């Protein structure tokens, strides 16, 4: 028996040694992205709003327009070569290029573009959020968005809205143009190919989907006949690496070229590595504490103000938030119209002040509340908040888990999370933080964070609406400044501490991979030395 065991062990070791030969750095025409491909419920552009899947879909589909990652306000042509806004801003006419084809070989036409936009609105899923804000509905979209001929797409606007906002939304990954013919071949029960497009792609992008296995891998292959030129990478692979330490080892070994969702500790270690570059891509969202205004204690302004002083954000900015955000207390993202020139401190970490405010609000013995983090990624911040809030007399019982559903359903007390946005305009963050047109439970406006916290300030909602209608850049900036000021004065239910940053670790030999703030990073220009 011992002899058999010994032989087995020797055999296994030999096999392991031999297999080492199979391991090497990634080939020069293959890009391997270590990321989280776990929670991708669908590849349908109309139904997505998460980071990883947005990046993937942005490479399987083309949009009518694109936004330059270095200058987001500059709108660039993609499938549309040119566009013209009517003098009264009531419509936009786009002229499509004639050399673009889908992966199926079908030409890309204005019919496809019109159908895609109509489909997004008709399905009414998360991808429709932006367009629905411009007044498009399932009833009016077919009439308002139409192909005049094979190359001309006309978009009539149902209400007065800044046309830049509409153009920005056309560059979002939810509006990747779908091959209508190919999709309709797989339509069942009038579902507009929703079921088929969950796990298949029908785009004109530079890459095609070879395989997708949830919790494991996504394999894409370049299109040799891509209208924008054949990409240098033959294959781009998204590999599921849920453990940050493991991802770091693979980045260091060269088995992974790009690292996403790398933990703070590992980023710290990689920061000094000459073989890597860490890109800090700012996002249009914030890290915040949310206070449910349906809770009689938390709805008192003094209590809300007290919560502004219980998070040691300066300490966090040096630890868990060092690579994931920078201190920011305005609801207008840095660099955008109406945003402060630089960081303005409206509230400092001051547990003593918080204790006084609580006493003034009628809680001299402090408060006891439940704290819900958005998910595991927010646990460190939540633990820190729990520890520092205790010094102010606030006992927070931390409930670990993913509590986005409770947040959406207004079924929480205190919540920590972060937001993201895909429109490079302050309007996008305003709709999250300063927009709540109907505060009733029945309204179910769970897309708006302000509704989720049940905070009702009609003046802020009106300012948001005004910013949507206004086209003059200076006037818009003034509206956002006014909105931000009012927000601060009212001691809001959503307390913003950091502006979001998405860190991407990129190996030195990779060129042309630029993390996009709207999560539509494209791989067509990536090369490797």
């Amino acid at each position: 028996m011992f002899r058999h065991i010994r032989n087995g062990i020797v055999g296994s070791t030999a096999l392991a040694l031999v297999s080492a030969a199979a391991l090497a750095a990634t080939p020069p025409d293959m890009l391997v992205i270590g990321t989280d491909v776990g929670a991708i419920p669908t590849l349908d552009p109309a139904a997505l709003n998460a980071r990883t899947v947005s990046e993937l879909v942005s490479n399987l589909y083309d949009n009518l327009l694109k936004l330059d990652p270095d200058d987001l306000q500059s709108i660039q042509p993609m499938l549309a070569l040119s566009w013209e806004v009517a003098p009264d801003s009531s419509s936009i006419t786009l002229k499509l290029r004639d050399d673009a084809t889908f992966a199926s070989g079908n030409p890309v036409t204005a019919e496809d573009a019109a159908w895609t936009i109509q489909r997004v609105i008709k399905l009414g899923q998360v991808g429709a959020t932006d367009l629905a804000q411009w007044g498009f509905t399932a009833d009016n979209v077919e009439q308002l968005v139409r192909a005049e001929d094979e190359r001309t797409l006309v978009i009539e606007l149902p209400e007065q809205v800044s046309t830049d906002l509409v153009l920005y939304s056309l560059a979002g990954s939810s509006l990747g143009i779908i091959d209508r013919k190919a999709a309709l071949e797989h339509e069942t029960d009038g579902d507009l190919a929703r079921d088929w497009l969950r796990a298949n792609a029908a785009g004109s992008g530079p890459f095609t989907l070879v395989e997708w296995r949830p919790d494991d891998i996504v394999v894409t292959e370049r299109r040799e006949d891509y209208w924008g030129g054949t990409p240098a990478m033959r294959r781009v692979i998204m590999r599921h690496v849920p453990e940050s330490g493991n991802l770091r080892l693979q980045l260091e070994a060269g088995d992974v070229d790009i690292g996403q969702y790398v933990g703070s500790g590992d980023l710290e270690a990689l920061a000094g590595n000459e073989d890597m570059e860490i890109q800090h891509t700012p996002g249009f969202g914030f890290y915040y504490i949310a206070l449910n205004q349906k809770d009689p204690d938390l709805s008192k302004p003094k209590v809300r103000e007290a919560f502004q002083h219980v998070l040691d954000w300066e300490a966090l900015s040096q630890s868990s938030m060092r690579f994931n955000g920078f201190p920011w207390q305005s609801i207008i993202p840095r660099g955008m119209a109406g945003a402060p020139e630089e960081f303005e401190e409206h509230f400092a970490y001051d547990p003593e002040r918080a204790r006084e405010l609580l006493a003034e609000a009628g809680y001299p013995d402090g408060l006891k509340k439940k704290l819900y983090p958005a998910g595991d990624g927010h646990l460190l911040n939540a633990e820190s908040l729990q520890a520092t809030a205790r010094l102010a007399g606030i006992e927070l019982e931390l409930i670990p888990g993913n509590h986005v559903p409770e947040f959406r359903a207004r079924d929480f007390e205190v919540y920590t999370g972060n937001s993201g946005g895909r429109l490079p305009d302050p309007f996008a963050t305003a709709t999250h933080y300063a927009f709540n047109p109907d505060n009733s439970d029945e309204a179910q406006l769970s897309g708006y964070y302000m509704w989720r916290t049940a905070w009702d300030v009609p003046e802020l909602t009106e300012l948001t609406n005004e910013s949507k209608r206004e086209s003059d850049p200076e006037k818009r900036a003034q509206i956002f400044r006014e909105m931000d000021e009012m927000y601060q004065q009212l001691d809001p239910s959503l307390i913003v501490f950091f502006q979001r940053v998405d860190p991407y670790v990129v190996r030195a030999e990779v060129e042309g991979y630029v993390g996009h703030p709207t999560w539509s990073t494209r791989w067509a220009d990536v090369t490797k030395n």
Partner: protein
Amino acid sequence: MPSVSILPGPRARRARLGRLAGRTVSLALTLLGLMALTFLMGRLLPADPVLAVTGFEVDRATYDRVFLELGLDRPVWQQFLAYVGGIFQGDLGRSTTTGQPVAVDLLRVFPATFELALTAALVGSLLGIPLGIVAAVNRDRMIDHIARIIGLAGYSIPIFWMGLMALLVFYAKLRWVGASGRVDVYYEGLVPSRTGLLLVDSAIAGDWAVFRSAFAHLILPASILGYYSTAYISRMARSFMLEQLGQEYIVAARAKGLPRHAVVWRHAFKNIRVQLLTVVALVFAGLLDGTVLVETVFGWPGVGQYLTRGLQYNDMNVVMGTVLVIGLLFLAMNTITDWLYRRLDPRTR
């Protein structure tokens, strides 16, 4: 030698048939209980079954339509019957986190976990059984203490930490093994999936490069899980063996002048095989659903990650479907172990 029964032919057959019928009824009842339990679990989980299908971004009309489609307006017993009917047609619902039918997902993740658990159980048995026996034979001597420390270390060191350390040494420093997934990315999709077990599939296809890569990815997580199981297996093997070594037939065998290894392996070991089988079967069954930490460290696309994500995201169909299948596997393991018992030990027939 022909088998001898103390009962006459027809009566023996009847008795056998009776036993078979009894076992089948008991199996069917357990199955029904299992389905009732998972159904109940689905109703008790704090998740809206409609939102589990539609996702959060849903308008009222779609919500109402799906509510009716799911039969949630019907009495609970009718819903249960529909659920059982669905199971027998292989319909476990659709996952909201992967967008795929749960049955399709399980067909993908179970072979990965099965391959990992089987290899781990093999490693655990190959290490644990000899370790336990050597410890028993050398009771209270140095070798016994060392064996116990080896076993205990495997049990006490956090498996997550051990996984990362092992990766640091065997992947990052020595480059002997793969870091995550089941195979290197260059070999993805090269071998057609027949059994879902990559080692087997690549061997059938005769693609030895894929086989080596799959082995290099499997061996480290399997060894760590196996080492973790070693503690339990060796402790049980030691205690079973000690019990046998105190028996009279062992004394007789020794008195007869048989060498020690013959006494231990030929006589004592034969008598603990059945008990060891139960232990290994339990370890294996436990590995089928309890490998989530190792799966996370090694990015292994198995049941542990799938079920944990289902729980995190309130993906009810995933939780219900996975628990049901794990329950079925336990049932299958029990039935197989029972059968092996009867093959190995005539007294249990």
